[in-house]
Each structure stands twice: as structure tokens, then as C-alpha cells.
């Protein structure tokens, strides 16, 4: 375990403290701006010391995000957000670990890691900015694009069924699953705050329209389809069947926390394991040698 001095201070952090000096490279109208400001707000609401936060990203428009946040950040390679975030969290469980990336990073090249971070229940928040297109490489087909979508690499329309991130995450047993609309930063900040507070793997799919490659209509459609679970008095996010129904709803896009369940986190389970290992007695490291003298 690292020797961390988690400062107990009375400092009140405001949104300003989390902003870096770097200006985003995103296009005007990009949904990712909304996600970024919601993230600042969530950090401020939780009053997290910036030095105790690590934001890990991969490659894509949205993965540029750590550079715009004045916390620790890691803009790594394409598709490896979850392993790197797992390493950070397990090396130092005191750190609040946030993964931020896109639909291609998470559900195409990085898909192999998703079920494993979920089943380990790594205590982190994974925000996927889902624009259903590859923006950074300028307009190729995404795994979350719909059948029939014409992109630079699906000239005749996509013939592949999309990954549906929220349904997928519910089905593989994620302990916290939410959907947010990048056009509603206020709501988003609340959900991200809940995600960070959730002990375990919190998945948040941020529907984040791409004006450049999806046109102005994508945002309009998302706004028109959004409905908010918090406004439905009888919705409790503790029923997986209901959560799946909402995730599959033909009526529109359910926004908010769809499902939440408390389960032991990976770092807590690991600490239990260490305690069991230590219970049998621990030799000095030098003494291990004795085992190899027959």
C-alpha cells in the first residue's frame, strides 16, 4: 500500500479548482462539454481533494478529458481504461478513480475488459461518453451505431446490431448502472455524484451527441426521447427486471440510476484475503530462503 497522506482539511473546493488551464479541443456543440462540467460539479459537491482523484482515459474525443481536469490524470492507450484504473485503485484504494472514455474505446477495442471489471466490482466510476460514432478519427462506424447507419466505413448502412451499453451492463451484473443525457449537466452531476459514492463498479452511459458527424438531429432526438426515472414516483433502482424493462423501453430513453446494488468491492475483498494470508504467520522476507534449503 502506498504511504498516502490523505489530507484532512477544511478546504471547500469549488468547481474552479478542478478546471485545468487547458482548453478542450472538442467541436462546438459537443456533448462532452456537458459531461466535463457535470464532472467538475460532482467533484465539488463531494468536496474531493484534487490530489486524491485520478481520472483515467483511453483514446478518442472523450478520452481527452483528463487533460481538462486539475486532478491526477492518465490519458493512456486505446481500450485499456479499465485495467489501468484497476491497477490504480488496487495500488491505492484511498484514491477516487474515474474512468472516462468513448463507446469505441469501451465497447469495441476495450470490450474484453468490461465484464472483468464488473465481476471484480472494482470501486470506480466509469463514464462512457456514447456518441455512436468515431469522432477523433473523423466519422467511422461505432459498435453502438444502429443498423442502417451510414458512416465513412458503412457506406451502405450498418448491418451489425449495436451493443446496447445499459442493457449489456445490467445483463453482466454491474452493481450500479445509470444513463444520463449530456445535454442536462445538472442531472448528470447528481448521477455522477451517486456513482462516485457507490461502493463498487459504477457504470454511467452518457448519451453525448456528436454534432460534427451525427448532425444537429442527434441531440434533438435524444432530448425528445429522454425521460427521468427520478420523476417516476414508483421507480426504485433495486429491481433488475424493472431496470431491464426500462433499459429496453420503446417509449424513450430512461435517464437516471436504473440499478444499484451493494456488493463487496474488489479492494475490500482483497484486504480480507490479505488478512487471511497474514493470519498464518508471515516470515521475514530474508527467511523465505530457508524454504529452499532441503
Amino acid at each position, binding site marked *: *500500500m*502506498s504511504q*498516502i*497522506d*490523505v*489530507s484532512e482539511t477544511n478546504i471547500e473546493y469549488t468547481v474552479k479548482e478542478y478546471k485545468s488551464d*487547458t482548453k478542450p479541443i472538442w467541436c462546438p456543440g459537443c456533448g462532452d462539454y456537458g459531461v466535463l462540467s457535470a464532472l467538475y460539479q460532482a467533484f465539488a459537491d463531494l468536496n474531493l*481533494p*484534487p*490530489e*486524491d*482523484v*485520478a481520472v*483515467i482515459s483511453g*483514446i478518442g474525443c472523450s478520452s*481527452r478529458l*483528463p*487533460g481538462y481536469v*486539475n*486532478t*491526477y*490524470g*492518465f*490519458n*493512456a*492507450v486505446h*481500450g*485499456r481504461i*479499465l*485495467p*489501468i*484504473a*484497476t*491497477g*490504480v*485503485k*488496487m*495500488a*491505492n484504494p*484511498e*484514491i477516487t478513480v474515474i474512468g472516462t472514455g468513448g463507446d469505441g474505446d469501451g465497447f469495441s477495442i476495450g470490450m*474484453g*475488459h468490461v465484464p*472483468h471489471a464488473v465481476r471484480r466490482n472494482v470501486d470506480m466510476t466509469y463514464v462512457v461518453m456514447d456518441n455512436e460514432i468515431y469522432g477523433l478519427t473523423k466519422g467511422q462506424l461505432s459498435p453502438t451505431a444502429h443498423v442502417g447507419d451510414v458512416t465513412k466505413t458503412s457506406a451502405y448502412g450498418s448491418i451489425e446490431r449495436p451493443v446496447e451499453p445499459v442493457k449489456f451492463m445490467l445483463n453482466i451484473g454491474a452493481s450500479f448502472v445509470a444513463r444520463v443525457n449530456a445535454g442536462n449537466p445538472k442531472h448528470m452531476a447528481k448521477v455522477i455524484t451517486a456513482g462516485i459514492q457507490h461502493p463498487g463498479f459504477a457504470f454511467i452511459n452518457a448519451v453525448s451527441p456528436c454534432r460534427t458527424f451525427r448532425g444537429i438531429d442527434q441531440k434533438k432526438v435524444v432530448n425528445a426521447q429522454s425521460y427521468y426515472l427520478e420523476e417516476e414516483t414508483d421507480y426504485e433502482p433495486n429491481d433488475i427486471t424493472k431496470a431491464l424493462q426500462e433499459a429496453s423501453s420503446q417509449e424513450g430513453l430512461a435517464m437516471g440510476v436504473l440499478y444499484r446494488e451493494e456488493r463487496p468491492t474488489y479492494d475490500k475483498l*482483497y484486504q480480507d*484475503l*490479505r488478512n487471511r*494470508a*497474514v493470519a*498464518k504467520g*508471515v516470515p521475514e*522476507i*530474508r527467511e*523465505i*530462503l530457508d524454504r*529452499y*534449503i*532441503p
Partner: protein
Amino acid sequence: MEHKDVVIAMAGSGGDGVVSAGEILVGAGASEGIHGFMLKSFGPQIRGGESSCRVRLSEQQVYSHGDRIQIFGVFSWDDYRQFRGEMEFTDPVVIVMDTADKTNEDEIPLDSDVERIVYSVPITDLAKEEAGTTQAKNMVMLGVLSELFGLPGEGIRQGIRKKFRKKKQEVIESNIAGFEAGVNYVRTEVKKVDDIQFTFTEAEPKVLMEGNEAFAYGALYAGCRFFAGYPITPASEILEWMSRELPRYEGTMIQAEDELAAIGMAIGASFAGEKAMTATSGPGISLMSEQLGLASMAELPVVIVNVQRTGPSTGIPTKTEQADLMQALYGTHGDANRVVIAPADVEDCFGVGVQAFYIAEKYQVPVIVLSDQYLGQRKETFDQSALLNGGNGAIKQVERLTPSGEELEDYTRFRITDNGVSPMSFPGIKDGMYQAAGIEHGEKGLPTSDKNVHEKMTAKRFQKNKAVAEELNFIRFYGPEDAEVGVLGWGSSKGAIKEAVLRLNEEGYSVKAAVPQILMPLPTKQLNQYVESLHSLIVAEISYSGQFYRYLKGELQFGDCEIKQYARVGGAAFNVEEIYNVVEQEFK
């Protein structure tokens, strides 16, 4: 005749327990202060199938597995066929065979026309009658070998008790009964017709370890507390060892979902301030290569072990080769600095384990450790005092350079310094926030696509390799400095090269050898000096394409020295005789 150095092999099917017998034998030797060396070899089957082992016992320290088998214990000649390419015999060879195999002595399918001295022993029958189970066949074999050749019987009895100490008393007794049955059979029924009698003076017990164990131990000793890996032959023992030990020392070992995740987790843990590593074999390194570049670019310390096996692709997972050298030196896209270091024997695996972390942490670079199957999975003895004293001064621990309070006032993570190393903060350190990035960045860590910044920062990263070269340049040298014929090899080939050169020197040949421990950055100054006295130099390596030869041609100045290749395909380690013959040719 008295023998102070014997090579014994056994072959049988998986259930015959030849590997267990070999382990007990080499352990028995070590417990009585005898030096030992053991190789095991398996067929491709998961259980059952063929297996063989080779044990060398010697009063003196030995450096290799010993070329020719003097004593061969055979349960089944069918199983021997699988290994005949790996086995060479002395003339005569002494064979102990189980009569249950039903092969007549004059029909022995030995792939060699040496003279055979054969003892046919009803091993299976003795096991059934005296131990109550055919499972004790290997113990009967040990009894026969021990009594016939003067092997350390008391040590073997102790070894049997130790091996089965967690089993029921009956199991221990049955195995001991098997061993005694073999001993008694020789005493009462066998007339000794060969002249091999092993003799030794008892000494302080030796340490007996496998290379993979020694490496893992070295890493733990160096302060490694985070390991992520994915099972792969022949590196899994490191993963297994870490799984048992790391949690006991407040560490973390994760079996990742694949090698992409394994190195990602290690890099993440390193970013968070932990000494971290992963271990794999060639195929895993291929998957890790992209993130090797990430560690180089983001200047994150990480240790990556490659226990090489025969390639390419799946190749022969259970056999050795040295053909991942170029991959280690240059693998991954772009100009990615890294350090490559190769342990030479089991004891050195420990030292290199410590040193790899020393380099990674001090210089904030990825360090690739090139071990191989021959080294990782063999058992070898060394003196108790040798390990923690560190023969070559390599046993140095180090903590990462972190920023001072003053530096944190305007923290510049990638500040350009004389040796390229800039103080590194990690999550939790107030005012030390920065962005680690695979994207090119300036001194502050901000992304850039400016060609001039790329040039400056690339130079900074490679500056660290220059600093490593100045600090660390350990080379093993053997033979007289003014010799005119030289041998250059690397890694686990050291054993055969050393033994061959020492033998040649004893016979009056003026030969010298050099085996560098660090391959990147190559200690060119010292190696160029080594080459100066030479008329001819043989570059010996287990790589069909001659990767080391090609590398040296580009790095060293040979002047008038004629440089020759001895490069062959893997599947087996070098024999002493093989190197001896190649070098002796130079004198004809």
C-alpha cells in the same frame, strides 16, 4: 571408478513419477551439500503422457545440465522416444530398466550406438509387493540407483518423508518401503558390472531453487508489491509464487483477463506509486508491446519478464529458445526507450529481480527481463551465502525520486534534467497533480503535436538509457584477457559457454568468453575492449536467425577481428561439448 560429477536421467509416463523422483534426488544432494542441476521435460499432454528428467550431481559447483547421460533409468522405452532428440549418452551408458516393460536387453531402442551396461530390475513388481502399490515405482527406482551408484541415500529417505509430510503415515511408509525394496534388491540380487561410484564430501546444505522462483523472490525482496499476469508456459510459476506470497506482504497479485490487462494493471499501479511488474512468455509480450511504449512515453517504471519459449506463434511452449531478443530490444512502435537485462543462472535470477526494479524505479523506464524456459524451470543449487550478498553488487534497493516541496510549488512532471530523470509524483501527493500520457507531451505533461517538442522529449527519454549505461555495465568474463579467440553469448547460455571455456583453458587453449548482463543499453565500451585482443569471435546463441549476432554487428567495432556465428534453433539449451567443439575448430 570414483565419480565426483554424475548425470542421471529418467524417462517414463506421467504416472511413473520420474520428475518427483528427480526432485527428491537433487534435493537429497543439496541437503548433503552436493551441487545439483535438474531439468524436466514433458510431452504435450496435460496429465499422463511422457515425462523425463535429468539430474546432475557434483561435489563442485556446476554451470550446466551436463551433456551426456551416464546413468539412464527407464520405465518405458516408448516414452523415451519422445525425448530421444534431447538425450545424448556416454559410452558406455548404464541403463536400469523395469522388466515390466517387456523389452529384451538386446532390443533396446536407444538412439545411440554406444555400449550399454544393462540392469533389468522388476521395478513394478517390487513396488506392488513391497510398497503395496505400483505408484511407488519411482521410489524403487531411486532405491536401485542410490544403492548401485552411491547416491546420497539418507538424504533421499529424508526427502521422501518431506515430500509426503502432509499425507497419511501409510503413504510415507509405503514410499519408504519402495525405496528400501530397491536398495535391498541391488544388495541381494545384483552383481555390479559397471564402474560408476559417486563420491562426495558432505558440506553445508545448498539452496535449491528454480529460476522463476528465484526471480519472484528477488522482485519481492526489491519491494515489488503489485503483480498482474496471465497464465502462460513457461512463466506461470512466477504468477503462482506471487499469488501465494504477495498478499502476505500487503501486496496485490491479480490474475488478469489477458496480457493486455496484465500490463495495464501493472502500469496503473506504478502510476499510483507502487513497484509493479508482470511476467509472461513471448506470445504475451506480443500483446503487451503497445503498452510497453505507453510506459516508455509516460515514463512509468514497470518490470516485464519474458520467460522465453520456442517460437514463433505457439511454437513449442515447453522448450527453450533465445529468439525474442529483437522483440525485447526494439518491439513496439516508435522510438521507445527501455532497458533489457538477462539473468544468466538461477542465482542470478534473484539478483536480476532486484536489479530490474532498481533500474525501473530509479530511471522511470520499462525494464524487460529476458529469462527462458531452460533457466526459469530448472532447479539449480547455490551456496546459502551467495544470494543476499549479491555476487556482483547488484542487490541494491531504491525508492522512486519524488518531488520536493519546492518543486511542488510549480510542479513540472517531465522537467528536462541532466540524466533525463525528473521527480515523479503520484496520486495522493498534494500539488503534484499531472497528467500521465501516451500522447506526446511537453515538460508539464500537456499534449502536443509539435515536432520540436517531440525531438526534445525523445532525447530526454533516451538520456536515461545513457545514464543507465554509465552506471551499470556488468559483464561476466571468463578466460585470459589476451586470448585471441573469443566467445560472446547472453542469458542462460552462460552455463555451457563458461564450462566449455574453462575446460578449453585447462587443456591449454587460449580462449575467453564474455556474457553481458544488460543487453540494452549494451556496454559497448567494455565489449569493444574485450574484442581488441581477438583474431576471431564466435557469437553463440539459440536463435536460428542470429539475432544477437545482428545486434552486435550494429553496436560494436570489430576492427580486424573475424566475427562468426554459431546460431541454432531452440528446443534444447546449449551443451558444453557443443560450444567446446565450435571453439576448438578455431584452433585447427
